[in-house]
């Protein structure tokens, strides 16, 4: 039992140890036979060895085991020895440490004693020094005060010197430092002296600053400095702002005056305008901008009211500047405006416009200065352009009138005159296009383009000048005396007027619409319709044509009348030929015909027989009739009754001045008036036998040749008949010639 118990204890201890050292139990069967294993069972081993091995092996085994046991013994002995030695050494060390600690304790005690002694000494020293330190602080305070006083006493001198050196900012700094002190101790007699001195100097200083403030050529930096300093000296910012405003106003007004009395130095107009605008921008506008900028700089906290004062002032200046610029620009550019001039003018205006806009932004004003100014100038310029154009045209027309050569061919002259007229208006328009150039800032404004294009160019220049032109053309008709225009010129001009009526005016308008951004054919906005202009040209051409007819027929009628007056129709001799004047009249009519044919269409003829032989026959038969009734003699038949009956069958001759713009109508009108004049002359005369025969010959001759010029030969016939029948009535002895003889005479 005890053995088992010991065995259990042992196992228990082993377990605990193996647990501690982390060794796990190997319960393998072989281990029972491993000599070095933990579970070695000596008995089992021996049994096993005896059973399994031979004797020799046993003996060997026994010897081996003995050797092993002996080596193990010796090893154990060595280990024990070594451990013993180490123990001995530890014991010695502990003994030594015991004695060392004893000494250290003693030293520590001694140190505590020393420290307490030092503390006692230090306390005594500090208590001794306390009084001294207070005294030193007092002394240093007094020193500081004395230094300040020294500064105060020196202040007037310093101020004076710095003022003299114009180092105003230093002076102000000094003064600002001492101002409060002086104010506080001003009652004290010794200080009051200083104060009054200072006051005096500061007054000077202030004056100097104000002078600087007012001085004309002061830069804005200096100005800013003086204002800052003055405000430090206690000037109220309101009054300073006011003063600033007033001063700058004066300065700007001087600029304005300079500008209004600006005179050019006789340069090219365009350059002069540029120079003027340059000056405007650099003086008035620039200064205005600068003033505002400076103001904002130096019075950043200015009240709204002060600000308003300044802005009002600036607005006022610009308000006055604009008219000055307008007047001057218009004055400088002068009446003669070339294209280059206009370009320069526009460039100048544009520059001004941009500068003004910049200033306007500064002012935060929404005034329409520049656009009003530019619109005004544009209007004046376009008016002037229109006037110039009209003047040019007038000169052209006068030139043609005075230098007209009757050999001029009408057709070429029309082209030439139209070319010259168009050339002038083109030039004017080209000059005006400068205002709507792409690079021009102000013309980007839709409102401006619209007003300029529609009101000024289309209405003011185009419509107005064309109306004037049509009036000029018409007026040319009314001139008499030396201003009288040649009839051929009048005919030419009537064609010019018609061309304007038919296409020139319209094509010019299209050009304008294209160049000035007017919708093609645009009619709204109270624009004058083109038809109003073309109608005037039609009217003018009508007037001119009528005038042409009048002048030509005037000459012819005069020839006829003179020839009638110069002959005694009662006693004239028997006709042998057609009177030269009649031939001359026919020549003139054929000239009129050829001129008119160059310019006008033929016109519609009433059906005219082209068979001239039949016509001749026809006319001779008429002649036959006539001689037959005249042979009845006046006694047999009441001539006036006959006259009236004849009237019933003839058309009433329409002499009304309406002349169609075609060749036939023009020539016909001339012929009608001539023949009617002939008729009137005949009625004033009394004829003898040969007298009436001469008229008969003349009428027949006219009849032979006039038909080719007219599309209404019946009218010519009825007029010629009337002439002859009037002559018959005015004849004392109405015996007409034999038609054959008449024909013979005429064909000779």
């Amino acid at each position, binding site marked *: 039992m005890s053995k088992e118990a010991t065995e259990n204890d042992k196992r228990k201890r082993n377990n605990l140890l193996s647990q501690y050292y982390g060794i796990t139990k190997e319960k393998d069967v072989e281990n029972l036979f491993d000599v070095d294993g933990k579970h070695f069972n000596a008995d089992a081993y021996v049994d096993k060895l005896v059973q399994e091995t031979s004797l020799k092996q046993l003996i060997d085994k026994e010897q081996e085991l003995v050797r092993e046991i002996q080596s193990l013994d010796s090893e154990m002995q060595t280990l024990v020895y070594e451990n013993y030695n180490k123990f001995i050494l530890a014991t010695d060390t502990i003994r030594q440490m015991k004695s060392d600690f004893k000494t250290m304790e003693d030293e520590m005690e001694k140190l505590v004693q020393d420290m307490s002694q030092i503390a006692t000494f230090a306390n005594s020293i500090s208590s001794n020094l306390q009084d001294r330190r207070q005294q030193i602080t007092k002394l240093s305070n007094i020193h500081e005060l004395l230094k300040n006083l020294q500064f105060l006493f020196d202040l007037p001198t310093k101020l004076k010197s710095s003022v003299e050196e114009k180092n105003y900012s230093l002076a102000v700094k000094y003064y600002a430092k001492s101002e409060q002190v002086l104010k506080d101790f001003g009652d004290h007699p010794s200080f009051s002296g200083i104060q009054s001195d200072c006051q005096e100097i500061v007054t000077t200083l202030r004056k100097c600053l104000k002078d600087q403030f007012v001085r004309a050529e002061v830069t804005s930096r200096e100005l800013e400095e003086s204002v800052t300093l003055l405000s430090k000296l206690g000037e109220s910012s309101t009054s300073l702002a006011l003063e600033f405003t007033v001063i700058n106003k004066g300065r700007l007004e001087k600029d304005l005056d300079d500008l209004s009395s600006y005179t050019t130095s006789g340069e090219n107009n365009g350059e002069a305008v540029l120079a003027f605008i340059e000056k405007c921008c650099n003086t008035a506008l620039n200064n205005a901008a600068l003033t505002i900028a400076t103001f904002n700089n130096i019075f950043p906290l200015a009240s709204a009211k002060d600000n308003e004062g300044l802005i009002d002032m600036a607005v006022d200046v610009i308000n006055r500047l604009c008219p000055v610029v307008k007047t001057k620009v218009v004055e400088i550019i002068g009446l003669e405006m070339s294209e280059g001039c206009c370009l320069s003018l526009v460039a100048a205006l544009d520059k001004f416009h941009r500068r003004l806009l910049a200033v306007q932004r500064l002012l935060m004003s929404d005034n329409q200065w520049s656009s009003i100014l530019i619109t005004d100038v544009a209007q004046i310029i376009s008016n002037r352009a229109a006037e110039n154009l009209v003047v040019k045209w007038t000169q052209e027309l006068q030139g043609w009138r005075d230098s007209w050569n009757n050999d001029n061919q009408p057709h070429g002259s029309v082209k030439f005159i139209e070319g010259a007229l168009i050339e002038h208006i083109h030039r004017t328009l080209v000059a005006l296009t400068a205002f709507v150039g792409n690079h021009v800032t102000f013309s980007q404004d839709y409102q401006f383009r619209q007003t300029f294009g529609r009101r000024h160019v289309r209405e003011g220049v185009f419509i107005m000048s064309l109306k004037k032109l049509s009036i000029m053309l018409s007026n040319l008709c009314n001139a008499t005396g030396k201003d009288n225009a040649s009839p051929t010129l009048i005919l030419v001009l009537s064609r010019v007027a018609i061309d304007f009526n038919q296409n020139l005016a319209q094509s010019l308008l299209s050009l304008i619409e294209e160049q000035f951004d007017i919708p093609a054919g645009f009619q709204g906005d109270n624009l004058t319709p083109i038809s109003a202009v073309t109608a005037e040209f039609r009217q003018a051409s009508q007037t001119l044509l009528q005038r042409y007819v009048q002048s030509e027929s005037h000459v012819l009628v005069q020839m006829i*009348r003179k020839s009638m007056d110069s002959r005694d129709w009662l006693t004239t001799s028997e006709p042998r030929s057609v009177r030269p004047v009649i031939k001359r009249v026919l020549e003139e009519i054929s000239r009129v015909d050829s001129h008119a044919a160059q310019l006008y269409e033929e016109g519609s003829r009433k059906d005219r027989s082209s068979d001239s032989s039949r016509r001749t026959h026809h006319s001779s038969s008429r002649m036959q009739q006539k001689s037959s009734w005249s042979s009845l003699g006046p006694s047999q038949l009441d*001539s*006036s009754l006959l*006259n009236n009956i004849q009237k019933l069958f003839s058309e*009433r001759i329409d*002499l009304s001045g309406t002349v169609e713009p075609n060749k036939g109508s023009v020539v016909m009108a001339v012929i009608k*008036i001539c023949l009617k*004049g002939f008729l009137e002359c005949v009625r004033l005369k009394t004829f003898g036998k040969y007298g009436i025969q001469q008229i008969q010959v003349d009428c027949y001759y006219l009849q032979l040749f006039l038909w080719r010029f007219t599309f209404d030969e019946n009218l010519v016939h009825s007029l010629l008949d009337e002439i002859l029948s009037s002559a018959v009535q005015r*004849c004392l002895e109405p015996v007409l010639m034999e038609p054959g003889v008449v024909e013979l005479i005429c064909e000779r």
Partner: protein
Amino acid sequence: MEEEAPIIYGLDFQARSLCAQYGETEMVRFLIGTQSLKSENSIHCVEYDEESVLVSKFVYPHPLGEIWQTNAHPNQADIISTVHKGQNQKMSATIYKMSPVPSNGQSIDTLDPTSHGQLKAIASLESSDEKEVAKVLWQPNDGNKVVTVSTDSQINLWDFSNDGKVQNAIFSEPLCKTHNQVTAANWSPHHGTNQVAVAMETNLQVVDLRSVNKGSIYNIENAHIEPIRDLDFNPNRQYYMATCGDDGCVKFWDVRNLSSPVLNRHDHYHWVWQVRYNVFHDQLVLSAGSDARVVLTSAASLSSEPFGKLMSDDKDNDDDEDVRSPLADGVITAYEEHEDSVYSVAWSSADSWTFASLSYGGRLLIHRVPRSLKHSILF
């Protein structure tokens, strides 16, 4: 509108001369001188009765040949003058006493229709040499004197003031040495009736009868570009006159400024043969031309009547579109009823709104000015 349809009276003869019978102040009566080479000429006295719209006539045979001009005495109804051309083919002038003539205010119908009218020559205005007479002019207003103008512009003044007997007072030298013939002449009613205007072709000269040989008082060179056919003085404004001529123009002149006419109307298409102011309303001017038209023109801006009268009334113009506003200068109406040249036109002396015009064929038209125009002038 029916009042504006003209009364037409046809003579059987051609005629150039027409004038109102100035001595008759109540009846609308005109005198026409016929112009016929071959038949007996006569003076037709034509009376128009406004109420019955009837025309009556009385004929006075004129034995001395065709009549180129007929002028009535300014206030004696029975005295007339004519310029005529007889067998000798010479233009002469004679003053006649017509008989019988109804007394003032009596209708011509009161004359015995079976009796024959008679022209008794009082005076033959023959100058000593063989000059042809172009125009005879009665002294305006009192008719005590007569001026004859010969074709070469000699002016003769005949005085009747002494008991109706003719005294030859003055013979002038010809005004003009050129060959230009006298085409028109008239006697100014102003300036003490001392001024006579004579037109020689395109030039116009005005002479003072008291110093007739000292040249003209003033003249207008080339007043028209073609011969002047007639001229008339504004009866109420002394410095104004009207001329007309072959250029178809009627020109109004202020004689104080002769460089250009104050108004130039070109409303005829051919020669203008006569121009006549209305004596009572001198803004109304008639002109007659060989375009067979008679034109009633307004020269309101040159009238002696103030504008205010004309401006007052617009309502009549509204309902009569034919008539332009009489305010404006210009054509009021153009009468185109004639078929032939109209050589003469005359305002009635009895009714200031009635006038007659005569065309070559012998057609006499009696018109009245448009009622609306009359109203706008009167009210």
